[in-house]
């Protein structure tokens, strides 16, 4: 149904969590969830998911998940633009399931195909003794709620260690953003090809 004065705009996200790059770890699985502001609401699709456990192949060092993402949001305001939070888990030396990294990134803003590589980091233990006991017991420091990674407040006291990357692919379609007056691409940069750079396959 097309209307001349739409009140909401839609953001449709298709994509996948393609693969991860962790030089030191193997046998990992990932969880994802979307974090968004008060003006946003998902209209269809899954907001959370857990992938399969994958191992490194013989030839390459990549951990491939090929895990689908499919969600549509509606909103009245770009503030609180959705972010995807990815958490990666894997077994440690003793077989316990420990966190290997958290990462977050905003869903791309412009229609088209985008490939994003996000760094993954883990919280660090405060002292060396704590580091040793957490390694022994299998209880590493983790965030109680992974959504903290998508927020800017309260992070000044956290110490983290970044140790890997996850590659995501997105295909974005927006509806009615122009009708509501929002410009996400500029005519000048479109002519010089700058905004199209991220859409090259």
């Amino acid at each position, binding site marked *: 149904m097309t209307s001349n004065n739409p009140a909401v705009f839609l953001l449709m996200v298709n994509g996948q969590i393609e693969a991860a790059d962790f*030089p*030191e770890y193997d046998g990992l699985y990932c969880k994802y969830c979307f974090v968004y*502001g008060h003006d946003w609401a998902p209209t269809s699709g899954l907001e959370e998911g857990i992938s399969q456990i994958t191992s490194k192949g013989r030839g390459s060092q990549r951990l491939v998940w090929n895990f689908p993402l499919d969600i549509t949001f509606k909103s009245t*305001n*770009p*503030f*609180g*633009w959705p*972010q995807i939070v990815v958490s990666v888990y894997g077994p440690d030396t003793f077989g316990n399931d420990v966190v290997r990294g958290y*990462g*977050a*990134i*905003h869903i*791309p*803003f*412009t229609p088209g195909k985008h490939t994003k590589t*996000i*760094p993954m*980091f883990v919280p*660090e233990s405060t002292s060396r003794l704590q580091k040793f006991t957490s390694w022994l017991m299998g209880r590493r420091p983790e965030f109680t709620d992974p959504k903290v*990674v*998508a*927020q*800017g*407040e309260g*992070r*000044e006291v*956290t*110490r*983290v*260690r*970044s*140790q890997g990357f996850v590659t995501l692919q997105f295909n974005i379609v927006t509806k009615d953003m122009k009708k*509501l*007056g*929002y*410009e*996400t*691409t*500029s005519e*000048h*940069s479109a002519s010089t090809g*700058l*905004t199209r750079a*991220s859409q090259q396959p």
Partner: protein
Amino acid sequence: MRTHQSLKSNETLRRLFLFACSETQALAARWQHKPCQTKNIHKQSTRKTPMAELHIIGQIIGATGFPQNSLFCKWGVHTGGAWRLLSGLKEGQTQVDMPQTGDMAYWSHPIDLHYTTKGLQGWPKLHLQVWHQDSFGRCQLYGYGYIHVPSSAGQHRLQCVTWRPLGTWQDQLAEMFVGGGPQLRSPDLIYSGADRYRLHTVGMGTVELELCVILRHFDRYGVES
């Protein structure tokens, strides 16, 4: 006849009464100025052009090129007087990151700001201070930097260069052994060029950011960007 006369007089009375009512209403309106004018203003505000809005959404990705890796960043956004922040935090501090592999420290710190403006002067500037935290928990300044928020809509990958004030040779010698070093007294100097002519600085690493700028209603004011 009597009833007709009384009807006529009633009619005149009614008309007089109505006239008196309307006059007192007009007088009251003139004294208070509120009822009539607020109605008019309400009508005008729905006809006025809405204000221009700017959304800055993105991340401070990380930093690279600094002598040590265990870094965090204090950031803030400064605007002119015509800009008003509607939602979002305009300053903050990132986490401290110690990268296991590679040189770049990753923060992935989200920025989400919603501004409304009456003029183009004082376009938002993002200023940063990069600090190093060592294993003992001491913090040392590693660099100041600022960058203008891009003025065209779209997604931008930005690199912000940083610099550090350099003291006298005695200060530099002490810095080698003890750490520390001179810092700016007020952070305004990071993004203003007013009093810099006596400052002696040295260049440090770069901070990478990815910002998306969304403009709204700027074309109604004739602004081309």
